[in-house]
């Protein structure tokens, strides 16, 4: 990945920053959709380099953050059962459900394992035919193809002791929901490059047109983000609202066609609750009828579990860009990465965790 060096070159970054400053004549508020972009912006101090009036609003694109509490509680219930091997990506282990997290289940004797790919979980299922192996399939359009491929493989290989706890969410309906909110301040979007590398860009022109907002598909390295901001500012200043691809090395307009075909086969669109935001119609995927036997919620009969959020946590307002993380009264007090009230504080890509981890200096100085 040596080539990534070029995408954090300070000289090139300075030129882009100068161009952004030269182009900006008034305040603008734009939302970076993806948590990976938020993390990069805060980690590299990119927002500190922008003109004072240019505000980055941190969007809901952290898959860990928006996984609803009830799904996490269902995961906990499944993982605690004897004979179950519950497999997950690492950053889901510390996400609090109502009372505990997967680490707690593991400490109490549950067989909870961190894997790096859903295919690892499938291998565990094949190696342990006497166990029920469940993979926690969360995330946006980015992680969904691998999960779809794994379920497809499980059926093809006849692996009956594997199932998927699905909580996939989709970006375009979330953008629409944000724009429909009466308190919305977002004037433009940096779309998530990795999502578009799977799905292409065709879903965005209708949104740009309907809501009169520029949408710039943006990558994750510092220069990617600065280039996304530069193009967005130029559109805003010129009164344009187009879809631009500022991440052509990874994104083709038509997307990844084989991946999309696999997604259509394995998943179907469903209403989905987003943690902190609520139910957004047609904003998620569930296993299609053809693959229903691999649905962990059905297999373990946990679909009835319903839970309520902490009343102190304002992660929903953070996820919709209505407040900055440190404007929540619980930030850094009742709510820290050690004791997160909401998932925006627990995930490394959550806006609250990024502010707590990298920005305490200014927040202390400001007091």
């Amino acid at each position: 990945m040596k080539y990534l060096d070029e995408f954090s070159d300070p000289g090139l970054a300075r030129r882009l920053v100068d161009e952004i400053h030269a182009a900006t004549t008034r305040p603008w508020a734009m939302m970076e959709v993806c948590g990976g972009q938020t993390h990069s912006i805060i980690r590299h101090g990119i927002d500190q380099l922008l003109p004072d009036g240019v505000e980055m609003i941190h969007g809901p694109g952290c898959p860990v953050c928006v996984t609803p509490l009830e799904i996490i509680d269902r995961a906990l219930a499944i993982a605690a059962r004897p004979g179950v091997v519950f497999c997950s990506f690492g950053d889901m282990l510390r996400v609090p459900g109502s009372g505990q997290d997967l680490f707690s289940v593991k400490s109490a004797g549950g067989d909870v394992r961190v894997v790096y790919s859903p295919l690892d979980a499938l291998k565990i299922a094949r190696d342990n035919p006497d166990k029920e192996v469940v993979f926690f399939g969360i995330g946006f359009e980015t992680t969904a193809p691998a999960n779809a491929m794994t379920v497809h493989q499980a059926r093809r290989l006849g692996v009956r002791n594997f199932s998927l706890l699905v909580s996939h969410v989709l970006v375009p309906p979330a953008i629409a929901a944000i724009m429909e909110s009466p308190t919305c301040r977002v004037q433009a979007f940096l779309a998530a490059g990795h999502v578009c590398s799977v799905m292409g860009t065709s879903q965005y022109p209708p949104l740009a047109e309907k809501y009169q907002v520029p949408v710039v598909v943006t990558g994750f390295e510092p220069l990617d983000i600065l280039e996304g901001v530069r193009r967005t500012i130029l559109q805003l200043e010129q009164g344009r609202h187009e879809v631009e691809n500022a991440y052509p090395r990874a994104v083709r307009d038509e997307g990844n066609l084989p991946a999309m075909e696999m997604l259509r086969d394995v998943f179907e669109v469903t209403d989905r609750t987003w943690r902190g935001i609520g139910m957004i119609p047609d904003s998620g995927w569930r296993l299609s009828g053809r693959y229903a036997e691999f649905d962990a919620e059905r297999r373990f009969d946990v679909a009835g579990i319903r839970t309520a959020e902490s009343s102190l946590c304002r992660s929903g307002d953070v996820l919709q860009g209505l407040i900055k993380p440190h404007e929540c009264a619980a930030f850094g007090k009742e709510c820290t990465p050690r004791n997160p009230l909401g998932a925006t504080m627990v995930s490394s890509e959550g806006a609250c965790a990024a502010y707590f981890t990298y920005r305490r200096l200014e927040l202390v100085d400001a007091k």
Partner: protein
Amino acid sequence: MGHGGGGAMSAELVEHLFLPAYGSAAAAELGDSAVVTVGEGTRLAFSTDSFVVKPMFFPGGSIGDLAVNGTVNDLAMSGATPLFMSSAFILQEGTALTDLGRIAQDMGAAARAAGVRLVTGDTKVVDSGSGDGVYVNTSGIGVIPAGVDIGPRRAAPGDAVLISGDIGVHGVAVMSCRDGLDFGTTVESDTAALHGLVAAMLATGADVHVLRDPTRGGVAASLNEIATASAVGVELIERDLPVPDTVRDACSLLGLDPLQVANEGKLLAIVPADCADRVLAALTAHPLGRRARRIGTCVTGHPGMVVARTGLGGTRVVGLPVGEQLPRIC
């Protein structure tokens, strides 16, 4: 698990559970080793460490040489010459004697290379399923030369922060041989005994203020501990950090911060600014310090906090890792 990760949770366990329970029986400066005085003013460094690394054998080393080098380094961070060590094993029933023999061979070789003697030990076996292979504890004693005063509270504003070489190598080496991870290249652990490197630094006559062996929790945890103990701020220049491509790529892939990844053959040195060049020259002249460099400065601002100046000119706080580092989803 997080309580053993070397980050904030580990520190809280010591501060809120162990030290209050021990009360006046505890005397802890919370360095890598304790410094005790015996007889006619002879100062001994005394340290203990347990090793539970999984897998037991990894590219560049094993739990055996790690157990020796780890304790040698904890002693060396006080400026001590390591002399004697213990080795205690907790074995799970069913452990292969061939594995145990290989670990013992590695320990012997590492001890001979470090010039320490393994003088006492213990072995216990637990039921199958009660442990996880082989756990090793080593304790060590060394003598601190007269005139050497190295401790976590001695960092002062203006001091230079040096690192003896590439960071994050051991952590990535161990991760690379866990199930499901393949970085497409072999990363070898940097496990090594560092007392010779410390001796070379002290031979310059420099008044070395602080030495740390940034193992669990990485450079971030060590510098935060120093900043807190000395009530100074630490300012790092991110572009000066020696992060090998393999480590950076692996961390990028997993969403980890190289500053928080474990090292086993590196040291951090805090030295007065006017000694920095000669200490750095001594480090780079030693085989284990060829890639040493200055990475930052102790400052009066933001006491107790480590701040990095990013490559783009912004700043970010470098915090203690909370517990175990968790690979991210995407």
